[in-house]
């Protein structure tokens, strides 16, 4: 073998020193995206870890949570008073507290999402351009009012009391809905959520497809991360954008091939274990009295929040 080794492999680098260039390597946007994908898996992992903690909501059966969740979403959507929405927010906060969730970390996300999908989206509706109302904060004055298509632009434009009330209500509704979603997601392992969906008579085939997809997400992101590291290990200089795009396209093709191969393997494994055309998930355990009590309590609290 030794005589087959090419001569260049016997050469050592001319020097053991290097010159700092003082310039950093620019990582293309597409590659940063790959890193974020890996970060997403880390989030899923921490969610799994938290859902296994000893907390009041973690101990509750997933079916109760899955049933109660839409009920509370309806309550959140029906209430029209700020005080009621605040009360609901406090109730969810207390559940999170008793479930030992990382409140600061979660509320950072909740408030950010509420700001984007609640406050900022609803804010223009607070202007008297869309609905009349008592102007609380005048923004600017025009020489006269204008008529444009079906809209009337008044001579004084500002934020109205009714508009601001609507914005606050909508933001609180969004915040409460997101908080409820996080509460369920962070206190229930995903496979349990999937099984609990049987309560709503979701077909088993759909449930198993969802479960397999979720499982594959981990394998997929691991592959993506490995691909990223493999490139990083041979990356010595910046790659032009078109090169990065080409690389990403090739890697996507590779992942599609691998995903298809994996799907075929999973199908064969299912066939070898007796799969024909229908899927039977194991029957879930009966609800414990503790779960019934929790469910009834949550229903009663929900009714109180609905009617007060």
């Amino acid at each position, binding site marked *: *073998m*030794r005589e*087959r*080794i*090419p*001569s*260049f*492999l*016997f*050469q*050592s*680098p001319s020097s*053991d020193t*290097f*010159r*700092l*260039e*003082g*310039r*950093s*390597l620019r990582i293309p946007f597409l590659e940063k995206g790959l890193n974020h994908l890996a970060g997403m898996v*880390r989030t899923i*992992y*921490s969610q799994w*870890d938290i859902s296994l903690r000893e907390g009041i909501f973690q101990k509750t059966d997933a079916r109760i949570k899955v049933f109660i969740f839409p009920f509370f979403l309806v309550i959140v959507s029906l209430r029209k008073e700020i005080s009621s929405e605040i009360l609901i927010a406090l109730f969810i906060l207390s559940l999170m507290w008793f479930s030992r969730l990382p409140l600061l970390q979660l509320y950072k996300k909740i408030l950010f999402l509420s700001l984007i999908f609640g406050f900022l989206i609803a804010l223009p509706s607070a202007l008297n351009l869309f609905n009349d109302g008592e102007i609380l904060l005048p923004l600017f004055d025009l020489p006269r009012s204008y008529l444009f298509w079906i809209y009337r632009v008044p001579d004084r434009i500002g934020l109205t009391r009714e508009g601001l009330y609507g914005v606050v209500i909508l933001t609180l509704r969004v915040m409460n809905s997101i908080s409820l979603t996080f509460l369920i997601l962070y206190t229930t392992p995903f496979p349990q959520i999937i099984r609990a969906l049987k309560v709503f008579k979701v077909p088993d085939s759909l449930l198993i497809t969802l479960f397999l997809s979720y499982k594959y997400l981990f394998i997929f992101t691991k*592959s993506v991360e*490995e*691909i990223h*590291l*493999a*490139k*990083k*290990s*041979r*990356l*010595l*200089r910046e790659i032009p954008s078109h090169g990065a795009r080409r*690389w990403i396209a*090739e*890697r996507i093709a*590779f992942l599609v*091939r*691998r995903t298809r191969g994996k799907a075929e393997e999973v199908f064969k494994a299912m066939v070898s274990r007796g799969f024909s055309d229908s899927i039977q998930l194991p029957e879930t355990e009966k609800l414990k009295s503790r779960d019934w009590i929790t469910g009834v309590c949550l229903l009663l609290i929900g009714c109180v929040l609905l009617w007060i």
Partner: protein
Amino acid sequence: MCFVVDLIEIMEGMEKIIRLENIDYLYHETISALSDITLDIYRGEQFAIIGANGTGKTTLLQIMNGLIFPSSGKLFFKGNEVMKETLRDKGFLRFFRERVGYVFQDSDAQLFCSTVLDELLYGPLQLKISKEEALERAFEIMKMLNLEHLKERPTYMLSGGEKKRVAIGSVLTMNPEVLLLDEPTNDLDPRTQVFLVELLLALNEAGKTIVFATHDLELVSELADRVAVLSENHRLVRIDSTETILSDQDLLLEVNLIHEHVHRHGKIVHRHLHFHPLPHKHED
């Protein structure tokens, strides 16, 4: 014993090429993958990192290649600290990457160019070597690894052994001083395994430092000068000469690298610690 003393004396005269100091690594900021790892690797040695599945071998190799960074502790290459900040500098990045090559366990992940030839050319072209020289290197490597007939083939249409050879070739065309190999013989047929061992021995003779992670003790006995043993609690249990480590059955049993094996010889059921290079007697 005499061999161990000799080995220590030899090591003292050699240049440290990689140094790890008190390395800890946490996955997802919670699960410990490595705990308090300190070790030195010397220029020109063949160094094995062994441990059962999940002990942190791959993580350790990836840290050595500056692909991931430890939660605490330091990595030095030729006396220069390797960390996220230093690797951002183009000068240091080039210095480090052209000297340390990494062969992944999963060749599919490593091979990202369209054809075998493109794969072999990628590294040298990154190094800004002229196209003629890069081609020369690629063809020499193909000749050495018996890949010439595959040069235009897409990498996904290769067999497992061919992929592994291309993966090694893609690193060798950059002519690194240090080769890090993760489970190099995994999923390879016996003939390809023998070829790989011969290749790595020859590369070592050519002056390359070989560091590999494995739980294949046969490979260790054939290839390594020194061995670092990782335990299932992700700590470095011992670093010693290959002979010393492989003859310590208690240690290998403790770190789950050998196991008690029950099998039948004729009518006799026979029980012994299982690891092929270890001689064992068949009792009557």
